[in-house]
């Protein structure tokens, strides 16, 4: 990857999401560099679906993602620590129900 030909290093970053099969949600799998949306989709296809990983792809400009600040993790996440009653662990899930 020679820097002097300019490829890649000055392209924006895109986050890649794949739906592995019908009924499943798209999941974040990684990121690619690409100059525009259409090639971002092509690069995502060529990088992340080479082994039949999915049936649908999303790419999203990384800079469009609003992220939480690690410094706020106390107020954001710690209050949930002692609320065990929010976990669905007090009843049995039938075997036929998948993906929970």
């Amino acid at each position, binding site marked *: *990857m*020679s820097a002097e030909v300019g*490829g890649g*290093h000055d*392209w924006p970053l895109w986050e890649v999401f794949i739906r592995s099969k019908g009924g499943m949600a798209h999941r974040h799998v990684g990121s690619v560099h690409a100059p*525009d949306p259409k*090639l971002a989709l*092509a690069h995502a296809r060529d*990088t992340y679906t080479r082994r039949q990983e999915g049936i649908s792809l999303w790419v999203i400009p990384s800079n469009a993602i609003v992220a939480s600040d690690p410094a706020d993790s106390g107020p954001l996440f710690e209050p949930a620590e002692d609320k065990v009653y929010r976990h669905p662990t007090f009843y049995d899930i039938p075997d036929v129900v998948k993906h929970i």
Partner: protein
Amino acid sequence: MPSLPTIEQDQIRHAKNAPDGGAFDAPSQMRDDPYHDYLLRLGDDSLVLGQRLAEWCGHAPGLEVDLSLANLALDLIGQATHLYDHANDGDGDALAFHRDVLDYRNCWLVEQPNGDFARTIARQLLFSTYQHLLYRELSASPDPFLAGLAAKAVKEVAYHRELASDWTIRLGDGTAESAGRMADGLDWCWRFIPELFEVDAVLEELIARQTVPDPRGFEGEYKAAIAGVLAEAKLEAPADQRPILGGRRGHHSEHLGHLLAVMQHLPRTYPDARW
């Protein structure tokens, strides 16, 4: 790795008896059979272009482009594998690795060196557009093997065509440098287009048997499609040049010999080696 085998006397005799202008160390595998010849034409186009694209591995402008080109290469080499296996009773490797340059039947376009990325894209645009139209027609062939192969490959090739078109447009309608390189790449490849639509005696017979499509039937569509991409890329079509023909008869540029030397070196030095 084993050391190089000793050269035996009968091999020297074999080399001395090689026909003028013919294969010098691999016996010719050509048969007087248009259908067999056609399988080789399709297979050689795919294999040689696949090998060319694989040369980009580790050198492409960007990791993602590296993978894109390798994916195209693997699609093409997969097509060649099916065609050679069908042409040679399941032993496709013999056709790929133990055949000399004069027996190769690919068009000149695919054997052209990669050049820079823009020239590689120009070559891909001109070839994938042709291959897409050809396989689309071929998928309606009454020959079940060709129809099956084309029906599978046409989806792969549709993606190749789309990717090459997208890159042509981005490079052509990009910076002054990328547009200049794209124009140079097209200029280099342009003289190899007429060969794609050449109809010789072999093709004539297969067309008459209605086994394969007449490429002249989609030549107009091809030219319009390329013109459409170039217009979107804000590029002028190169001036028509003296066409270069002969690949289908085994006449090739010197580049193909070098490509085959690299590709065939291991299997020909160590026949039947496994790894």
